[in-house]
Protein backbone atom coordinates (compact mmCIF):
# COMPACT_ATOMS: atom_id res chain seq x y z
CA UNK A 1 0.00 0.00 0.00
CA UNK A 2 1.22 3.44 -0.85
CA UNK A 3 2.19 5.37 2.23
CA UNK A 4 0.51 8.67 2.92
CA UNK A 5 2.77 11.71 2.74
CA UNK A 6 2.38 13.83 5.85
CA UNK A 7 4.00 17.21 6.42
CA UNK A 8 3.94 19.44 9.46
CA UNK A 9 4.56 23.19 9.35
CA UNK A 10 5.44 25.47 12.22
CA UNK A 11 4.48 29.12 11.75
CA UNK A 12 3.94 31.61 14.58
CA UNK A 13 3.22 29.30 17.51
CA UNK A 14 4.88 27.93 20.61
CA UNK A 15 5.51 24.43 19.21
CA UNK A 16 3.10 23.05 21.77
CA UNK A 17 1.00 21.53 19.01
CA UNK A 18 4.03 19.70 17.67
CA UNK A 19 4.64 18.47 21.20
CA UNK A 20 1.12 17.16 21.19
CA UNK A 21 1.82 15.34 17.92
CA UNK A 22 4.87 13.72 19.51
CA UNK A 23 2.90 12.83 22.59
CA UNK A 24 0.93 10.09 20.89
CA UNK A 25 2.63 7.19 22.69
CA UNK A 26 2.03 3.74 21.19
CA UNK A 27 -0.30 5.04 18.51
CA UNK A 28 2.78 6.15 16.66
CA UNK A 29 3.60 2.55 15.81
CA UNK A 30 0.37 1.97 13.95
CA UNK A 31 0.53 5.37 12.25
CA UNK A 32 4.18 5.06 11.28
CA UNK A 33 3.39 2.02 9.18
CA UNK A 34 1.05 4.02 7.05
CA UNK A 35 2.67 7.42 6.74
CA UNK A 36 5.85 9.14 5.73
CA UNK A 37 6.61 12.44 7.38
CA UNK A 38 8.06 14.32 4.44
CA UNK A 39 8.56 17.79 5.86
CA UNK A 40 8.50 19.68 9.15
CA UNK A 41 10.47 20.46 12.29
CA UNK A 42 10.48 16.76 13.16
CA UNK A 43 12.39 15.72 10.04
CA UNK A 44 15.31 17.01 8.05
CA UNK A 45 13.85 18.32 4.78
CA UNK A 46 14.76 21.71 3.36
CA UNK A 47 12.12 22.29 0.70
CA UNK A 48 8.39 21.67 1.04
CA UNK A 49 7.79 18.76 -1.36
CA UNK A 50 5.16 18.53 -4.10
CA UNK A 51 2.07 16.40 -3.74
CA UNK A 52 1.77 16.14 0.01
CA UNK A 53 -1.35 14.31 1.13
CA UNK A 54 -1.89 15.88 4.53
CA UNK A 55 -0.25 18.90 6.12
CA UNK A 56 -0.71 19.91 9.73
CA UNK A 57 0.03 23.59 10.24
CA UNK A 58 0.71 24.99 13.67
CA UNK A 59 0.75 28.72 14.38
CA UNK A 60 -0.69 31.94 13.02
CA UNK A 61 0.48 33.86 9.97
CA UNK A 62 2.54 36.71 11.40
CA UNK A 63 5.14 37.65 8.85
CA UNK A 64 5.44 38.07 5.11
CA UNK A 65 7.51 34.89 5.15
CA UNK A 66 4.65 32.98 6.81
CA UNK A 67 2.21 34.35 4.24
CA UNK A 68 4.39 33.24 1.32
CA UNK A 69 5.00 29.87 2.89
CA UNK A 70 1.37 29.07 3.56
CA UNK A 71 0.53 29.81 -0.09
CA UNK A 72 3.17 27.34 -1.23
CA UNK A 73 2.02 24.76 1.31
CA UNK A 74 -1.55 25.13 0.12
CA UNK A 75 -0.56 24.67 -3.52
CA UNK A 76 1.29 21.47 -2.76
CA UNK A 77 -1.09 19.88 -0.26
CA UNK A 78 -4.27 17.91 -0.76
CA UNK A 79 -5.69 18.15 2.77
CA UNK A 80 -4.59 21.17 4.75
CA UNK A 81 -5.32 21.10 8.48
CA UNK A 82 -5.07 24.10 10.76
CA UNK A 83 -3.74 22.57 13.95
CA UNK A 84 -4.26 24.34 17.26
CA UNK A 85 -5.72 27.64 18.31
CA UNK A 86 -2.96 29.83 16.86
CA UNK A 87 -3.62 28.43 13.40
CA UNK A 88 -7.39 28.50 13.89
CA UNK A 89 -7.95 31.81 15.69
CA UNK A 90 -4.42 33.30 15.87
CA UNK A 91 -4.72 33.09 19.66
CA UNK A 92 -1.61 34.25 21.56
CA UNK A 93 0.26 35.68 18.54
CA UNK A 94 -2.73 38.02 18.11
CA UNK A 95 -2.03 39.65 21.46
CA UNK A 96 0.38 41.98 19.72
CA UNK A 97 -2.23 43.06 17.17
CA UNK A 98 -3.24 46.16 19.08
CA UNK A 99 0.28 47.55 18.87
CA UNK A 100 1.71 49.02 15.65
CA UNK A 101 4.56 46.89 14.32
CA UNK A 102 7.14 49.67 14.47
CA UNK A 103 6.33 50.38 18.08
CA UNK A 104 6.35 46.68 18.85
CA UNK A 105 9.81 46.15 17.40
CA UNK A 106 11.10 49.28 19.03
CA UNK A 107 9.88 48.13 22.43
CA UNK A 108 11.39 44.69 22.03
CA UNK A 109 14.76 45.65 20.57
CA UNK A 110 15.44 49.18 21.74
CA UNK A 111 13.57 49.77 24.97
CA UNK A 112 13.84 46.41 26.65
CA UNK A 113 17.07 45.22 25.09
CA UNK A 114 19.09 48.40 25.24
CA UNK A 115 20.19 48.12 21.61
CA UNK A 116 20.15 51.28 19.52
CA UNK A 117 17.81 50.31 16.77
CA UNK A 118 15.74 47.56 15.25
CA UNK A 119 17.69 45.07 13.14
CA UNK A 120 15.83 45.87 9.92
CA UNK A 121 16.68 43.55 7.05
CA UNK A 122 17.57 40.54 9.10
CA UNK A 123 14.08 40.16 10.51
CA UNK A 124 11.25 38.61 8.53
CA UNK A 125 8.91 41.46 7.79
CA UNK A 126 6.02 41.37 10.25
CA UNK A 127 2.47 41.81 9.01
CA UNK A 128 0.38 44.46 10.74
CA UNK A 129 -1.69 41.72 12.35
CA UNK A 130 -1.07 38.09 13.14
CA UNK A 131 -4.01 36.32 11.54
CA UNK A 132 -5.39 32.79 11.36
CA UNK A 133 -4.61 30.60 8.37
CA UNK A 134 -8.05 30.65 6.78
CA UNK A 135 -7.78 34.37 6.11
CA UNK A 136 -4.96 33.51 3.67
CA UNK A 137 -5.74 30.10 2.19
CA UNK A 138 -8.55 27.60 2.04
CA UNK A 139 -8.39 25.25 5.02
CA UNK A 140 -9.86 21.78 4.79
CA UNK A 141 -10.18 21.16 8.49
CA UNK A 142 -9.79 23.11 11.69
CA UNK A 143 -8.48 21.38 14.78
CA UNK A 144 -8.87 23.84 17.64
CA UNK A 145 -7.27 23.39 21.05
CA UNK A 146 -4.34 24.86 22.90
CA UNK A 147 -2.91 22.45 22.15
CA UNK A 148 -5.30 19.96 20.56
CA UNK A 149 -4.95 16.73 22.47
CA UNK A 150 -2.72 14.04 21.11
CA UNK A 151 -5.69 11.72 21.07
CA UNK A 152 -7.61 14.13 18.86
CA UNK A 153 -4.73 14.44 16.39
CA UNK A 154 -4.30 10.68 16.23
CA UNK A 155 -8.03 10.26 15.79
CA UNK A 156 -8.16 12.69 12.90
CA UNK A 157 -5.14 11.16 11.16
CA UNK A 158 -6.51 7.66 11.60
CA UNK A 159 -9.87 8.67 10.19
CA UNK A 160 -8.18 10.27 7.19
CA UNK A 161 -6.06 7.17 6.63
CA UNK A 162 -9.21 5.07 6.73
CA UNK A 163 -10.79 7.39 4.17
CA UNK A 164 -13.34 8.67 6.65
CA UNK A 165 -14.30 12.28 7.23
CA UNK A 166 -13.29 13.06 10.82
CA UNK A 167 -16.21 14.17 12.98
CA UNK A 168 -15.11 16.87 15.40
CA UNK A 169 -18.39 18.08 16.88
CA UNK A 170 -18.48 17.45 20.61
CA UNK A 171 -14.82 16.44 20.66
CA UNK A 172 -13.22 19.85 20.57
CA UNK A 173 -13.33 22.96 22.65
CA UNK A 174 -13.43 26.19 20.67
CA UNK A 175 -11.87 29.37 21.92
Amino acid at each position, binding site marked *: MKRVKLATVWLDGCSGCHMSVLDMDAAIITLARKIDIVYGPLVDAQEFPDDVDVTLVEGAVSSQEDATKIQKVRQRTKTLI*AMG*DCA*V*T*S*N*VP*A*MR*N*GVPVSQLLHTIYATSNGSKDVPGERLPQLLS*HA*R*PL*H*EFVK*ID*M*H*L*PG*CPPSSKLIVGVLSDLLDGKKPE*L*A*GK*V*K*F*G
Partner: protein
Amino acid sequence: MPKKLQLRIDGEMVSALEGQTILQAARNSGKYIPTLCYLDGLTPVGGCRLCMVEVSGIDRLVPACTTPIQDGMSVSTTSAKLTRYRKIMLELLFIERNHICAVCVSNGHCELQAMASQMGITNVRFSYNYPKLSVDQSHSRYVLDHNRCILCTRCVRVCAELEGAHVWEVTSRGIHARVQSDLNQKWGESRGCTNCGKCVQACPTGALAEKGWAVEEMIKRNDNITVLAHRKGAGA
Protein backbone atom coordinates in the same frame (compact mmCIF):
# COMPACT_ATOMS: atom_id res chain seq x y z
CA MET B 1 -53.18 32.56 40.15
CA PRO B 2 -52.31 33.00 36.47
CA LYS B 3 -54.07 30.87 33.91
CA LYS B 4 -52.51 27.65 32.68
CA LEU B 5 -51.80 27.63 28.96
CA GLN B 6 -51.00 24.75 26.65
CA LEU B 7 -48.37 24.99 23.95
CA ARG B 8 -46.20 22.75 21.84
CA ILE B 9 -42.44 22.93 22.00
CA ASP B 10 -40.75 20.88 19.30
CA GLY B 11 -43.95 18.94 18.90
CA GLU B 12 -44.35 18.07 22.56
CA MET B 13 -47.32 19.43 24.47
CA VAL B 14 -46.33 21.36 27.56
CA SER B 15 -48.26 23.57 29.92
CA ALA B 16 -47.10 26.83 31.38
CA LEU B 17 -48.50 29.84 33.16
CA GLU B 18 -49.85 32.87 31.36
CA GLY B 19 -47.28 35.65 31.40
CA GLN B 20 -44.33 33.29 31.18
CA THR B 21 -41.96 33.54 28.27
CA ILE B 22 -41.26 30.81 25.75
CA LEU B 23 -37.86 30.35 27.37
CA GLN B 24 -39.36 29.86 30.84
CA ALA B 25 -41.93 27.43 29.54
CA ALA B 26 -39.21 25.49 27.74
CA ARG B 27 -36.84 25.36 30.68
CA ASN B 28 -39.58 24.33 33.09
CA SER B 29 -40.38 21.41 30.87
CA GLY B 30 -36.77 20.42 30.38
CA LYS B 31 -36.37 21.80 26.87
CA TYR B 32 -33.09 23.45 26.01
CA ILE B 33 -32.78 26.78 24.22
CA PRO B 34 -29.31 28.33 24.07
CA THR B 35 -28.87 31.73 25.72
CA LEU B 36 -26.03 34.06 26.65
CA CYS B 37 -27.43 37.38 27.81
CA TYR B 38 -30.24 35.73 29.73
CA LEU B 39 -29.73 35.00 33.41
CA ASP B 40 -32.59 33.55 35.41
CA GLY B 41 -33.57 36.15 37.95
CA LEU B 42 -32.71 39.23 35.87
CA THR B 43 -35.00 41.10 33.46
CA PRO B 44 -34.48 39.62 30.00
CA VAL B 45 -33.30 42.10 27.35
CA GLY B 46 -33.15 40.03 24.18
CA GLY B 47 -29.69 41.29 23.25
CA CYS B 48 -27.68 38.23 22.22
CA ARG B 49 -30.44 36.82 19.99
CA LEU B 50 -29.16 33.28 20.56
CA CYS B 51 -32.55 32.15 21.82
CA MET B 52 -34.36 32.97 18.58
CA VAL B 53 -36.99 30.33 17.87
CA GLU B 54 -39.58 29.68 15.20
CA VAL B 55 -43.27 29.97 16.03
CA SER B 56 -45.70 28.53 13.54
CA GLY B 57 -47.93 31.16 12.02
CA ILE B 58 -45.39 33.93 12.53
CA ASP B 59 -43.22 34.60 9.51
CA ARG B 60 -40.25 35.89 11.46
CA LEU B 61 -38.07 34.54 14.26
CA VAL B 62 -38.82 35.57 17.83
CA PRO B 63 -36.57 35.70 20.89
CA ALA B 64 -37.66 33.06 23.41
CA CYS B 65 -36.47 35.08 26.39
CA THR B 66 -38.85 38.01 25.90
CA THR B 67 -41.77 36.56 23.96
CA PRO B 68 -44.73 35.66 26.16
CA ILE B 69 -46.43 32.37 25.48
CA GLN B 70 -49.87 32.13 24.01
CA ASP B 71 -52.33 29.34 24.30
CA GLY B 72 -51.97 26.84 21.49
CA MET B 73 -48.65 28.23 20.33
CA SER B 74 -46.31 25.85 18.53
CA VAL B 75 -42.60 26.53 18.95
CA SER B 76 -39.59 24.98 17.20
CA THR B 77 -36.34 25.46 19.06
CA THR B 78 -34.11 23.99 16.37
CA SER B 79 -33.94 24.06 12.59
CA ALA B 80 -31.21 24.24 10.00
CA LYS B 81 -31.76 28.00 9.74
CA LEU B 82 -31.65 28.56 13.51
CA THR B 83 -28.46 26.54 13.83
CA ARG B 84 -26.87 28.51 11.01
CA TYR B 85 -27.88 31.80 12.57
CA ARG B 86 -26.78 30.81 16.05
CA LYS B 87 -23.38 29.89 14.71
CA ILE B 88 -23.04 33.27 12.99
CA MET B 89 -24.08 34.90 16.27
CA LEU B 90 -21.25 33.21 18.15
CA GLU B 91 -18.75 33.78 15.38
CA LEU B 92 -19.55 37.49 15.48
CA LEU B 93 -19.00 37.59 19.23
CA PHE B 94 -15.60 35.97 18.80
CA ILE B 95 -14.43 38.41 16.13
CA GLU B 96 -15.82 41.52 17.80
CA ARG B 97 -13.18 41.71 20.51
CA ASN B 98 -10.02 39.89 21.52
CA HIS B 99 -10.97 36.56 23.03
CA ILE B 100 -7.59 35.02 23.62
CA CYS B 101 -8.85 32.12 25.63
CA ALA B 102 -5.43 30.59 26.23
CA VAL B 103 -4.56 33.41 28.60
CA CYS B 104 -7.99 33.96 30.18
CA VAL B 105 -8.87 33.30 33.82
CA SER B 106 -12.20 31.91 32.71
CA ASN B 107 -10.77 29.53 30.10
CA GLY B 108 -12.68 26.32 30.42
CA HIS B 109 -15.42 27.87 32.53
CA CYS B 110 -16.65 30.41 30.00
CA GLU B 111 -20.21 30.40 28.74
CA LEU B 112 -19.19 31.79 25.33
CA GLN B 113 -16.62 29.02 24.90
CA ALA B 114 -19.04 26.39 26.10
CA MET B 115 -21.70 27.58 23.70
CA ALA B 116 -19.28 27.52 20.78
CA SER B 117 -18.09 24.02 21.56
CA GLN B 118 -21.64 22.84 22.01
CA MET B 119 -22.59 24.25 18.59
CA GLY B 120 -19.69 22.36 17.05
CA ILE B 121 -17.89 25.51 15.93
CA THR B 122 -14.32 24.75 14.91
CA ASN B 123 -13.47 28.06 13.30
CA VAL B 124 -14.82 31.49 12.51
CA ARG B 125 -15.38 32.42 8.87
CA PHE B 126 -15.15 36.17 9.36
CA SER B 127 -11.89 37.99 9.76
CA TYR B 128 -11.13 39.21 13.25
CA ASN B 129 -11.50 42.86 14.23
CA TYR B 130 -8.62 43.09 16.73
CA PRO B 131 -9.79 46.34 18.33
CA LYS B 132 -7.55 48.03 20.86
CA LEU B 133 -9.36 47.87 24.18
CA SER B 134 -8.52 48.81 27.72
CA VAL B 135 -8.45 46.87 30.98
CA ASP B 136 -9.64 48.55 34.17
CA GLN B 137 -7.62 47.19 37.05
CA SER B 138 -8.32 50.08 39.40
CA HIS B 139 -10.62 48.12 41.68
CA SER B 140 -8.88 46.49 44.63
CA ARG B 141 -10.59 43.14 44.23
CA TYR B 142 -11.88 42.91 40.69
CA VAL B 143 -10.82 43.60 37.16
CA LEU B 144 -12.75 44.61 34.02
CA ASP B 145 -11.26 43.48 30.71
CA HIS B 146 -13.14 44.96 27.75
CA ASN B 147 -11.35 42.54 25.46
CA ARG B 148 -13.50 39.74 26.82
CA CYS B 149 -16.83 41.55 27.18
CA ILE B 150 -19.74 40.44 25.01
CA LEU B 151 -22.09 43.25 26.16
CA CYS B 152 -24.66 40.86 27.58
CA THR B 153 -25.40 43.56 30.22
CA ARG B 154 -25.89 40.98 32.95
CA CYS B 155 -23.58 43.08 35.16
CA VAL B 156 -25.68 46.17 34.47
CA ARG B 157 -28.86 44.41 35.41
CA VAL B 158 -27.62 42.51 38.44
CA CYS B 159 -26.15 45.69 39.89
CA ALA B 160 -29.36 47.63 39.31
CA GLU B 161 -31.94 44.98 40.03
CA LEU B 162 -30.40 42.97 42.87
CA GLU B 163 -27.80 45.17 44.48
CA GLY B 164 -29.58 48.42 43.73
CA ALA B 165 -26.27 50.17 43.23
CA HIS B 166 -26.61 51.11 39.53
CA VAL B 167 -22.85 51.24 39.08
CA TRP B 168 -22.82 49.76 35.59
CA GLU B 169 -24.27 51.26 32.42
CA VAL B 170 -23.64 50.93 28.71
CA THR B 171 -22.08 53.96 27.12
CA SER B 172 -21.65 54.93 23.45
CA ARG B 173 -23.38 53.04 20.68
CA GLY B 174 -22.98 50.43 18.00
CA ILE B 175 -19.62 48.74 17.78
CA HIS B 176 -18.26 51.35 20.19
CA ALA B 177 -20.63 50.43 23.01
CA ARG B 178 -18.87 49.64 26.31
CA VAL B 179 -19.94 48.83 29.82
CA GLN B 180 -18.78 51.55 32.17
CA SER B 181 -18.89 52.20 35.88
CA ASP B 182 -20.24 55.35 37.48
CA LEU B 183 -20.47 57.70 34.49
CA ASN B 184 -17.14 56.59 33.14
CA GLN B 185 -15.17 56.82 36.37
CA LYS B 186 -12.60 54.16 37.08
CA TRP B 187 -14.20 51.23 38.81
CA GLY B 188 -11.83 51.57 41.74
CA GLU B 189 -12.96 55.15 42.19
CA SER B 190 -16.65 54.36 41.96
CA ARG B 191 -18.52 55.69 44.97
CA GLY B 192 -21.56 53.58 44.19
CA CYS B 193 -19.83 50.22 44.05
CA THR B 194 -20.44 48.15 47.17
CA ASN B 195 -17.76 45.60 46.25
CA CYS B 196 -20.45 42.91 46.39
CA GLY B 197 -19.05 41.09 43.37
CA LYS B 198 -22.44 40.12 41.91
CA CYS B 199 -21.46 41.56 38.55
CA VAL B 200 -18.40 39.34 38.50
CA GLN B 201 -20.40 36.25 39.26
CA ALA B 202 -23.02 37.15 36.67
CA CYS B 203 -20.50 37.74 33.88
CA PRO B 204 -20.51 34.84 31.42
CA THR B 205 -16.91 35.34 30.29
CA GLY B 206 -13.67 36.52 31.81
CA ALA B 207 -14.54 40.19 31.25
CA LEU B 208 -15.28 40.70 34.93
CA ALA B 209 -13.08 38.63 37.22
CA GLU B 210 -11.66 38.50 40.67
CA LYS B 211 -8.06 39.42 41.00
CA GLY B 212 -5.59 36.79 42.11
CA TRP B 213 -6.64 33.94 39.86
CA ALA B 214 -4.47 32.48 37.16
CA VAL B 215 -5.51 31.14 33.76
CA GLU B 216 -8.50 28.76 33.95
CA GLU B 217 -8.94 29.34 37.67
CA MET B 218 -11.90 31.71 37.83
CA ILE B 219 -15.10 29.78 38.34
CA LYS B 220 -18.29 31.88 38.41
CA ARG B 221 -21.28 31.08 40.62
CA ASN B 222 -24.19 32.72 38.88
CA ASP B 223 -26.63 30.15 40.29
CA ASN B 224 -26.31 32.11 43.54
CA ILE B 225 -27.66 35.14 41.74
CA THR B 226 -30.67 33.22 40.53
CA VAL B 227 -31.36 31.91 44.03
CA LEU B 228 -31.03 35.37 45.49
CA ALA B 229 -33.23 36.90 42.83
CA HIS B 230 -36.00 34.39 43.32
CA ARG B 231 -35.81 34.92 47.06
CA LYS B 232 -36.28 38.67 46.53
CA GLY B 233 -38.98 38.07 43.95
CA ALA B 234 -37.10 40.19 41.47
CA GLY B 235 -36.83 39.77 37.75
CA ALA B 236 -39.21 37.79 35.67
